[in-house]
């Protein structure tokens, strides 16, 4: 069942295709196995690459002998740091501001110091994959272990082994407002808890893969699965070629979730292609993939909340400690998201947030769907339940007394420009749970709710822009060209839908060319729930310009005013008199003969701001925020600690659906990702060594585990995206894990403060409660 209350809240706008559950343009190819992915491209004479990795997390490279590998017939090239001195790769996504980049350059291959388990030591290119693998085994290296540090708290202590900088602290953010002391003084009860969130692996089904070659213009060209083709600049810098001589082309990406947001195989491919001057293919094994891209940050969040007996939050103090792992990557930004979202969708006037990210010898952490906002939600929503319990108030009622309302400022003092419909989302989701399932014997039933706030659009101090080009052909078909990468959420298809809606052609008549750093206008990243917001707007502006020019000519031909012209289903007609009509294709031919410009390149700019105040964190961090809620019912077997999710409802204000089926799909997938995060997905490390580098050890929800997910879509039409849309990719996941945690606590009467909430942790918590 799905509830949409558009009609109740806004007069229904008339769309011919927006908001409908249309078949995405990429679906038929995927369902018939015809869609090529980056790993499906081959070239004559191509070489096969391998990465050789360190097998100790903290060590000094004493000896690296590649002579036997080099001597093996069929090996074309073996490279070590000695062969490419001082090459580094920048690991942040540059903004447009010219602001100094984060100090996050990483050695491409280990020169001397190994900082994490799996750090690359050497690259091999050989004539066949078998020979490359044989060569890998012939490489001899000796690593001398040096003391490492695997816990952020330990890493901050004086005398701790230094992984990065002088004290391992890679980022600090503060948010302060109001009077914290006065706030706590006004509280009747103070609730203090620490919540622990785990590493998480993206586990996209398609491991990192790419093919590089040098083209007829000496351009190093890389076809790769990535969320961010804009890394072509960093890769060009790393191999020492001008930015216009390195080209990154995407393909349909087999899942990203943030794990293909940083550079993965591109640098290795560029170096090997440059060195060998042959096409080179590199495909990560699943184990490479586990070791080769950053994870979700494990974060420890200490919450201290002051509340009055009548349910008002008077003060909140939050201490955040994130494990950045061995390299900085996007840690400062992830941490900022966590800090900004620390109070969640609640109004807290007396607030203090102190957040730090610390380097360790664990796997580096970086972007993952939810990007710091998820960890904050895991904590603030559990804390809301704890606070409600402490004052003996119903948890929905307690939330109701503290929601941010439309027009209220968030933690940074910024007032989101769109609607804040948290209350509606929570109420609808909670009601949809229906009659409670009865507990039976050792099977205890519990229910949980969680609300969430998650930004869409990148940090506004990065000065984000996006471009799209739209043109109409002589036969009435429409072309969209935009650099946006399609990571499986229908990014390209939604651009087609927007152009189709505005120009008035049917969806099959639109073709999108995307994801090419030198040929399609740069659109920015498919990250931060921004693709629809940013690139959708760019496509909207471009399509509107084309439409407007066509309408002027149509008005003349049909003897009407441009404002009276409608375009729909490949026809152009006078709105009040549809008998006066012609084919759009015929109109385009007339336009062409008159030299009317039938295409447009548009740029869309997000709001540009400066950074937040470094002491108070006040200012604007994001363009806008999305709000939603998750309601969950679980059954917990208190004898085994086993959890079954019985009911799962997600309610989100998406602003405006562009494709209803795609929105539902994002919510289903976000829910699954969140359930795994809450319950089963665990990356176990021993002294920095990952001991769960496969899908048989790292347990994500399978078809056996997933409950049905009911979606409730609200459309406030207030978002900054096209037609009032907000982002949904990340918001879909944000409230899931705390809703599960709250349901489990409701079922068993004690809380497990550390995720994932495994049967073992549940059993221990019950044991502890029994004394």
């Amino acid at each position: 069942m799905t509830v949409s209350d558009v009609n109740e809240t806004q007069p229904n706008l008339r769309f011919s295709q927006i908001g409908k559950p249309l078949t995405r343009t990429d679906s038929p190819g995927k369902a018939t196995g015809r869609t090529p992915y980056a790993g499906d491209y081959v070239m004559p004479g191509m070489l096969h690459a391998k990465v050789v990795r360190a097998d100790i997390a903290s060590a000094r490279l004493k000896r690296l002998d590649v002579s036997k590998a080099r001597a093996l017939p069929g090996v074309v090239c073996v490279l070590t740091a000695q062969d490419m001195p001082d090459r580094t790769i920048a690991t942040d996504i540059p903004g447009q501001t010219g602001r100094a980049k984060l100090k996050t350059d990483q050695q491409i291959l280990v020169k001397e110091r190994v900082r994490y388990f799996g750090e690359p030591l050497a690259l091999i290119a050989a004539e066949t994959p078998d020979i490359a693998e044989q060569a890998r085994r012939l490489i001899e290296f000796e690593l001398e272990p040096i003391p490492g540090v695997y816990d952020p708290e330990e890493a901050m202590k004086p005398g701790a082994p230094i992984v990065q900088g002088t004290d391992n602290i890679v980022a600090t953010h503060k948010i302060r407002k109001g009077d914290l002391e006065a706030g706590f003084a006004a509280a009747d009860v103070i609730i203090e808890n620490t919540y622990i969130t785990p590493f998480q692996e993206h586990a996209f089904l398609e491991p990192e893969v790419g093919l590089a070659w040098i083209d007829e213009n000496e351009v190093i060209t890389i076809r790769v699965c990535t969320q961010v083709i804009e890394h072509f600049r960093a890769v060009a810098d790393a191999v020492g070629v001008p930015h216009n001589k390195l080209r990154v082309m995407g393909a349909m990406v087999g899942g990203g979730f943030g794990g293909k947001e940083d550079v993965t195989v591109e640098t290795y491919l560029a170096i090997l292609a440059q060195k060998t001057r042959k096409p080179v293919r590199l495909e990560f094994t699943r184990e490479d993939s586990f070791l080769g891209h950053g994870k979700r940050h494990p974060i420890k969040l200490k919450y201290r909340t002051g509340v009055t007996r009548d349910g008002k939050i008077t003060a909140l103090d939050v201490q955040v400690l994130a494990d950045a792992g061995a390299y900085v990557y996007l840690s400062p930004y992830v941490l900022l998201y966590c800090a900004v979202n620390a109070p969640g969708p609640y109004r807290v006037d007396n607030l203090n947030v102190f957040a730090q990210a610390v380097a360790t010898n664990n796997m580096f952490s970086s972007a993952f769907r939810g990007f710091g906002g998820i960890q904050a939600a895991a904590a603030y929503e559990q804390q809301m339940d704890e606070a409600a319990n402490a004052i003996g108030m119903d948890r929905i009622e307690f939330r109701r007394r503290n929601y941010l309302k439309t027009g209220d400022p968030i933690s940074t003092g910024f007032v989101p420009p769109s609607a804040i419909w948290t209350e509606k989302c929570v109420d609808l989701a909670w009601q949809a749970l229906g009659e409670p399932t009865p507990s039976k014997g050792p099977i205890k039933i519990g229910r949980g709710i969680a609300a969430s706030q998650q930004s869409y659009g990148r940090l506004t101090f990065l000065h984000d822009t996006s471009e799209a080009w739209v043109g109409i052909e002589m036969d009435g078909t429409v072309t969209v060209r935009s650099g946006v990468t399609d990571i499986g959420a229908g990014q390209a298809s939604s651009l087609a839908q927007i152009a189709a809606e505005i120009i008035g052609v049917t969806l099959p008549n639109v073709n999108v060319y995307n994801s090419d750093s030198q040929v399609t206008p740069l659109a920015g990243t498919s990250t931060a729930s921004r693709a629809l917001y940013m690139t959708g707007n760019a496509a909207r502006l471009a399509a509107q310009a084309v439409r407007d020019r066509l309408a002027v000519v149509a008005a003349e031909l049909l003897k009407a005013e441009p404002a009276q012209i409608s375009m729909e289903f490949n026809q152009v007609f006078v709105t009040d008199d549809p008998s006066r009509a012609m084919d759009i294709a015929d109109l385009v031919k007339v336009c062409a003969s008159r030299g009317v410009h039938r295409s447009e390149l548009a740029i869309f700019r997000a709001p540009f701001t400066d950074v937040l105040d470094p002491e108070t964190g006040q200012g604007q961090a994001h363009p806008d925020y999305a709000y939603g809620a998750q309601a969950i019912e679980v059954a917990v077997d208190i004898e085994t600690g086993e959890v079954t999710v019985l009911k799962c409802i997600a309610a989100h204000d998406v602003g405006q659906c562009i494709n209803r089926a795609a929105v539902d799909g994002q919510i289903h997938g976000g829910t699954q990702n969140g359930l795994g995060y809450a319950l089963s997905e665990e990356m176990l490390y021993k002294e920095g060594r990952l001991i769960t580098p496969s899908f048989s050890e790292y347990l994500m929800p399978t078809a056996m585990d997933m409950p049905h997910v009911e979606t409730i879509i609200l459309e406030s039409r207030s978002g900054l995206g096209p037609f009032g849309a907000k982002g949904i990719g990340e918001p879909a996941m944000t409230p899931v894990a705390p809703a599960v945690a709250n349901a489990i606590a409701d079922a068993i009467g004690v809380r497990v403060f550390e995720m994932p909430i495994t049967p073992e942790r549940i059993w221990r918590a019950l044991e502890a409660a029994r004394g």
Partner: protein
Amino acid sequence: MSSDKAVTLRINGHDETATVPSHRTLLEALRGLGHVDVKCGCEKGDCGACAVLIDGEAVDSCLTLAHSAAGREITTLQGLGTPENLHPLQLSFSELGAAQCGYCTPGMIIASESLLRKNPSPSEDELRHALSGNPCRCTGYVKIFEAVNAAAEVMRNSGDPK
């Protein structure tokens, strides 16, 4: 290489010859022959992206040796239907939004087809069980279940399970 041996594989109704060593997996051999609709996600039997039908039964081609598949009927996703003549599962996966990134889709449809050939009206449990070796990271399986059920109905009614 000297250890390479020719093997004739019957793929989607056509005989093709691969010259590969005895340790080569069917996954590698199929992709080497251009059947890149067979995906690689783990090479360990953990993800099902590489599933193909062998004599009507879904198997992980990464756990099958190419030479052992000689003389058997191998069907990949492309072998089930074409864009002009879609298999009911291909149609339902496409129209109901069951493919997001689409990387699990070949294996998922093959596993579904294998199930429906044996059991045209699977219960929810039977369906979940049949797809449990095919993790999908994008869809939460919700639309996948819908798509398989919709296709099953079409296939039952057409009386031609293809």
